[in-house]
């Protein structure tokens, strides 16, 4: 009798669980609640931890570790001067491109505003199966699901799930990640597919071509409608034309090692207005950065 009661309770619990699971898959109500409460609580804890780290690192860097600071300062000043001259040249090129586009009457591409974000921690907890990171931005502060994440070296991934001020980002190395890419020089398109943290990603559905070589940089093509075109993604490390498949076998190494990333940029979608009409979105506590309409591939 007792065993029958236990079996009845376990069966009832399983039935309730399956009901809850399927209901949540359809409505996402419980996922939203977990993101709003659980993810936010975790984000708050790690924000405090990072602030503590910054405080002690600040004390160490400002008062204790001052050796070689003068020498480093001189080197940095020289570097800033070099970069300023380079920037001036690039500004000229950019202005020229805008003029030529206007002349050709090309439609202005959809624009994006970069928002700085900090990586709070990597994947954590028994439910974190996907290759992911947690960042200190949420849907109230510019990180809605689908928002691209990148650094100055290249693409990192996209936002997967958001709480109010904390979000989980999916890395491009995750097996579920798919990105439409194209060779920077060869202009050949393919789908960049993650294979987990321990293997380099591959590029699928690339038609055989002798133009695609090892060492070529792959950039986003923008065809997937998620990422703006032109963001550097990876470098081809293996490109082989095989007899047993009608597509090329391509392995590419991401330009950004996501495990080393501490800060990143989120690209907030701000609509398709022309550059001269649009005003950048501004929060009273944030430094405004100029909107990015084009992405110049950065040499690694």
């Amino acid at each position, binding site marked *: 009798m007792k065993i029958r009661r236990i079996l009845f309770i376990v069966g009832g619990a399983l039935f309730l*669980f399956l009901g809850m699971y399927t209901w949540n898959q359809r409505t996402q109500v419980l996922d939203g609640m*977990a993101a709003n409460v659980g993810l936010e609580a975790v984000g708050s*804890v790690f924000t405090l931890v990072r602030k503590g780290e910054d405080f002690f690192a600040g004390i160490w860097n400002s008062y204790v570790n001052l050796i070689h600071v003068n020498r480093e300062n001189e080197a940095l000043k020289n570097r800033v001067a070099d970069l300023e001259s380079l920037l001036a040249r690039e500004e000229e090129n950019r202005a020229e491109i805008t003029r030529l586009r206007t002349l050709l009457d090309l439609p202005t591409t959809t624009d994006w505003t970069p928002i700085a974000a900090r990586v709070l921690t*990597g994947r954590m907890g*028994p*439910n*974190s199966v996907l290759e992911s990171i947690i960042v200190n931005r949420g849907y109230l502060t510019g990180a809605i699901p689908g928002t691209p994440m990148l650094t100055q070296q290249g693409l990192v991934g996209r936002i997967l*799930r958001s709480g109010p001020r904390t979000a989980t980002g999916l890395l491009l190395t995750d097996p579920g990640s798919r990105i439409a890419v194209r060779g920077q020089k060869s202009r050949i398109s393919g789908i960049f597919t993650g294979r987990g943290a321990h293997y380099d990603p591959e590029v699928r559905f690339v038609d055989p071509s002798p133009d695609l070589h090892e060492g070529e940089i792959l950039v986003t093509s923008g065809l997937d409608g998620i990422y703006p075109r032109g963001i550097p993604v990876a470098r081809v490390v293996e490109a082989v034309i095989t007899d047993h498949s009608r597509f090329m076998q391509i392995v590419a190494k991401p330009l950004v090692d996501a495990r080393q990333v501490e800060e990143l940029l989120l690209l907030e979608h701000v609509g398709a207005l022309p550059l001269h009409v649009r005003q950048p979105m501004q929060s009273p506590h944030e430094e405004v950065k100029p909107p990015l309409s084009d992405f110049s591939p950065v040499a690694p």
Partner: protein
Amino acid sequence: MKTLFTFLWLFCFIPLAIVVQGFVPGVDVLVVALIILLQEKEYVFSAWVMLLFVLLQEGMGTLAFGGAVLWYGGLFLLFFCGKIFFEARNVFFLLLFSIVLGIMHVLLLLMLAPLQNLTLNVPTLLHEAFMQALCILLLWFPMVWLRRRMLRYANAA
């Protein structure tokens, strides 16, 4: 008095456990508090704490809601089954329990991942299971010692 103390203990333990979880991917550190509460026969309190832990784990995880419910539900079930055969505070029971929880971690993810079309890396999963069992064993002893000592001070005060 003891309930108030347990509240304070959890208030200190939870943020620390979350930080530790950030360093050990795929491992649940919060579970140690739940095991200690169950061993002290605080069943109703454990159930409320479990609800909080479910929200936290589901929030920081990347699976659809349900994995943490099964994980903690399975923990409760295994604990009460194990209690029939062993003394719950016995070290041998804890050793077995931590191994079984490690195995349950693997089985649960193998069951849940296909439901969401996810690919699992089995070596990583086995490593996580080992770390989960080890983590419970390593953290249980200092946590119990600390809790008993603090409780003694609180009672004396």
